[in-house]
């Protein structure tokens, strides 16, 4: 019976994957990828603004979150007992548990209201806050696995602290850190709720990060809940692209973890 229950669990996943593949594959072609969405009632149209918008927002979020996350993880793995480390660990746990829509609300008041415009920058900051706990956690766990003798050897050779960390410890734990980063990027690539009132969506093509920008999950949400069939078709194609992208990132992470496993 246990076997039956376990196998039933995987059925929905494959049903969803196959259904989206079936619905979306007929909608994707070159026009789909390079055109803008057309007004309702006209066929054709594509999702170019959402693709570029998603790429830009995720890129800026990664640029903000990766250095801060890795440095935070290094600090947490180096000091285990100081009060700053305990409370920072607690706050990283709190951040990991916050619902994504609450993050959107807070960034609305921090960035959207002062700039008095929706912007891709605020969306990037919101997504960076969501990425931060994952990167910090995975860096800390990876660096905790490394033996102390590496660090002591570096110090014994007379290397300064930053060289020991950045040139010895971090490259050793590279696979764990990179897999955490790629997992975090895969997670935020599909997030909609923080972008609902920060990046807000844009029917036109825009690369200005201080103006609203469309993003792939936002497009899927808005078009799927609309009553127009052409928009539903666009949403199916976009859903397939998003799904393939997220699955690709997860598979890359698994390959990296397996090939460059940290073994001591």
């Amino acid at each position: 019976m246990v076997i039956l229950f376990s196998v039933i669990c995987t059925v929905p996943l494959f049903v969803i994957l196959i259904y989206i593949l079936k619905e979306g594959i007929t909608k994707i072609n070159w026009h789909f990828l390079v055109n803008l969405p057309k007004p309702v009632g006209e066929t054709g149209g594509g999702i170019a603004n959402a693709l570029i918008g998603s790429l830009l927002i995720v890129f800026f979020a990664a640029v903000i979150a990766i250095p801060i996350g890795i440095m935070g993880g290094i600090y947490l793995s180096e000091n285990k007992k100081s009060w700053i480390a305990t409370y920072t660990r607690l706050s990283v746990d709190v951040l990991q548990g916050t619902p994504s829509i609450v993050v959107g609300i807070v960034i609305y008041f921090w960035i959207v209201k002062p700039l008095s415009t929706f912007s891709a920058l605020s969306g990037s900051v919101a997504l960076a806050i969501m990425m931060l706990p994952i990167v910090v956690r995975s860096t800390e766990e990876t660096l905790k696995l490394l033996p102390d003798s590496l660090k002591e050897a570096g110090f014994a050779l007379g290397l300064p602290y930053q060289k020991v960390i950045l040139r010895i410890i971090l490259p050793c734990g590279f696979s764990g850190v990179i897999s955490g980063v790629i997992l975090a990027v895969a997670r935020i690539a599909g997030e909609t709720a923080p972008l609902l009132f920060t990046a807000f969506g844009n029917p036109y093509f825009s690369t200005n990060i201080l103006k609203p920008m469309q993003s792939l999950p936002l497009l899927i949400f808005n078009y799927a809940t609309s009553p127009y069939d052409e928009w539903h078709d666009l949403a199916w194609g976009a859903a397939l692209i998003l799904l393939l992208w997220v699955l690709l990132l997860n598979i890359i992470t698994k390959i990296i973890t397996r090939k460059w496993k940290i073994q001591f």
Partner: protein
Amino acid sequence: MKLSATKTEISRSSSLLREISSLPRMMNVLKALKIERSNRQIQLEKFFKTSLVLIALGILILVVCFFLTLVVQSMPSIKALGFGFLFGKTWDPVSNVYGTYPFLLGTLLTSFLALIISVPFSFAIAIFLGEYYPRGWFSEFLKNSIELIAAVPSVIYGFWGLFVLVPLVRSLEIKMGVTPYGIGIFTSALILAIMIVPYAASLGREMIRMVPSSLKEAAYSLGATRFEVITAVILPYAKSGLMAGVLLSLGRALGETMAVTMVIGNTSLIPKSIFAPGNTMASVIANEFTEAASSLYLSSLIELGLVLFLVTVVINLIGKRIIKRFTTE
């Protein structure tokens, strides 16, 4: 010949003498360079160490400011509505009446129903992967597909649910004789159940694998069947860890926004039955935030966000505390 040799010797030895006499000066120059270099090194080290501390402090301050922003922005509605906010039964923005009891009920109903549906499946997967097949190609395949369930974005679950699950539930409701909405609390609980299975399953699997094999072997040697070993030895030992996994799933289900917004029907009334449409805290924020016209409306939505934040964070922290206690025992 000998004279010229001695002359070069003398010149060489005199130049050497000059160099030797200037050696203390060179030593000083070298020492000064070395001190300067090591000063710079020490400065860089200090800079790096302080920037590490500053970044950690920054993360701490970020989370504190998070909480403060939520509290400050919901102050108008806390002052105006007080505790009746949580127990009022009508949410009517047009006449400025804000009672969030329907949303609390909707959130609790969907999350707990999803938990009830998903817990047997999560436990089954945890036992299967932890005890029956800890290694092997099938276990790898199952583990990867369960983790893939967690990786799929929630809008895609909502989208699929809206177009595939809702007609199915609608035909089920027609057969049952209930009003065939299709959307509603039951459908969103189903989709939530699919989404939260991986959290309890992977955590439970780790907990079950940590049961010491000496206990299991002792039970087997006394003649217990596999089922008896599972129910009498493994499950009681890993009980707290499994509870923590369930709590983490609950925390995820409470905060889930997008998939629920798409299939719950967005009716701000107390749901009449499980098959009726309703609303959850997260979905009402998602739907009405950008259309909140008055400041009281906006701040009551933010107070809702504050309540959601507190509840989810408390549940997640309790779950993580239990896991930490279990893994360091």
